[in-house]
């Protein structure tokens, strides 16, 4: 079966981004993956590559078996519609309300009727319990409400691949408890994949199938949930034990 997302020997050496080299992995539809590693490991380069914001200097990024390099305007648009992205800055449009932020994407391009868009948006807001904030602007929201709004916006078009990058920064665990259930539901969907970039992989052991660890721009560990717990990979051991001693030099 053709993987949903595949990296083939990808390298990036552009100035301004964390370099990676020889990164290869494949994520099947329905598979959830966690990428983790220390600072500067190349973790932050993966999402821009998937999103097409950055061009690999070597290798290839494939979506359903086809390269995303050199897509034209419309193909790129179609590709972007297959991806949802949630990052730690959330980037809610500050001049729009919660509802407008969520529905923006649908209103901008889609063929949905206004009533359909309202229905989708309302369902999401209800699910994420921000429905009473629908007319609030981001500045009036709490941290977790911002997070839930940003999540709703990332999944409003029901993408087959969702990337969540360092999104739990500065969040009170209890306040995102309800969100976790929503995320778990999505993670259980056999047609949808979720990719997490995080410094805390243990948070996602409940829904992730695959764990990939990067160090110095290379993959140093890749394995299942069980492997993540059991493996004696020295990098993973050092990471799990948050020790300063090991193969990784921590600054």
């Amino acid at each position, binding site marked *: 079966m053709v993987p949903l997302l595949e990296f083939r020997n990808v390298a990036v050496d552009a100035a301004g981004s964390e370099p990676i080299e020889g990164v290869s992995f494949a994520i099947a539809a329905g598979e959830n993956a966690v990428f983790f590693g220390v600072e500067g490991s190349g973790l932050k380069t993966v999402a821009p590559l998937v999103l097409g914001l950055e061009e690999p200097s070597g290798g290839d990024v494939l979506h359903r078996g086809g390269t995303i390099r050199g897509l034209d305007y419309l193909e790129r648009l179609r590709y972007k519609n297959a991806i949802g992205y949630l990052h730690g800055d959330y980037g809610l449009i500050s001049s729009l309300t919660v509802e407008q932020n969520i529905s*923006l*994407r649908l*209103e*901008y391009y*889609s063929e949905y009727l206004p009533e359909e868009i309202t229905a989708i948006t309302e369902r999401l807001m209800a699910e994420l319990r921000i429905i009473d904030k629908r007319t609030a602007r981001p500045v009036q929201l709490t941290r977790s409400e911002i997070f839930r709004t940003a999540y709703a916006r990332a999944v409003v078009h029901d993408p087959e691949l969702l990337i969540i990058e360092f999104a739990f920064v500065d969040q009170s665990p209890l306040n995102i408890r309800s969100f976790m259930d929503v995320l778990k539901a999505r993670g259980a969907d056999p047609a949808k994949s979720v990719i997490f970039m995080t410094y805390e992989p243990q948070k996602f052991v409940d829904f992730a199938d695959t764990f990939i660890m990067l160090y110095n721009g290379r993959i140093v560990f890749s394995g299942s949930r069980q492997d993540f717990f059991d493996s004696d990979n020295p990098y993973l051991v050092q990471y799990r034990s948050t020790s300063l001693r090991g193969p990784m030099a921590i600054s």
Partner: protein
Amino acid sequence: MMDDERKTTPSGGSVAAYVGAPLLRVWRGTVDFAAYVVSIVLSFRSLRFIRLRSISATILTQTRFTGIDALPFVIVIAVLVGGVVIIQGMTNLPRFGIEGYFSNLMVIIIARELGPLVTALIVITRSGTAIATEIATQKWSREILALEIAGIDPRLYIVIPRIVAFSLSIFSLIIFFDTAAFLGGYLISLATLYMPVGAFFGNLSQAFSMKDLLATIVKSMMFGVLIPLISYYYGMMPRSKSEIPIYVSRAVSRTLFTIIVLNVLVSALLYFSWLE
């Protein structure tokens, strides 16, 4: 996005050897800006996919901010400018028969030049800075990125509604400015000479030529396109928070310069007799 464009812009190195660093900078800036304009124009291809509903709110709020909110300020400035023009006109033109020149003087100075220019200056200082700052902070807080990820072309989503709003606002503001300036001039002129209101406005409408009306439309369109375009260009430039004020002030000064130069060009094109 913008960084990529900057990287791929031709350096113009061969020119540099001959004309020196400052000219090279100007040249690079121009090439870069041209590339940016081209990218905007190219992004128009996807205009047909855009639903008006998603940008209509932006057009409305932007028009309200740029146009309606600026209206009281514009009117006060206009009345004062109209008054000054008339004071100068009356003290420097021979008194006898001034009624005849009065309207023409106002149309020539206010409607042709001061109206569009002062309006543009007010819009730049109010809304040009606002856009540049807004875009810079949006870029900083990765709102622009969020748009791009959502498949929304920020050039279209941010620039197009603002071009529409600015063109409409500037056009309306120019008309309000002219009207207020004429009224201001008229009121001040009452201090020294009497002219019936009907006669004044009758003369005024006669003093307007088709060219003046055309100039008003052309200038408001031109300014309406350029101010958001340049402000967006510089708003996207900052790569860190500390660079935001630098590029915002650059956006303002460049916009001012461009507008004044183009104003002269349009006036020359329209009013120089050797071009007719």
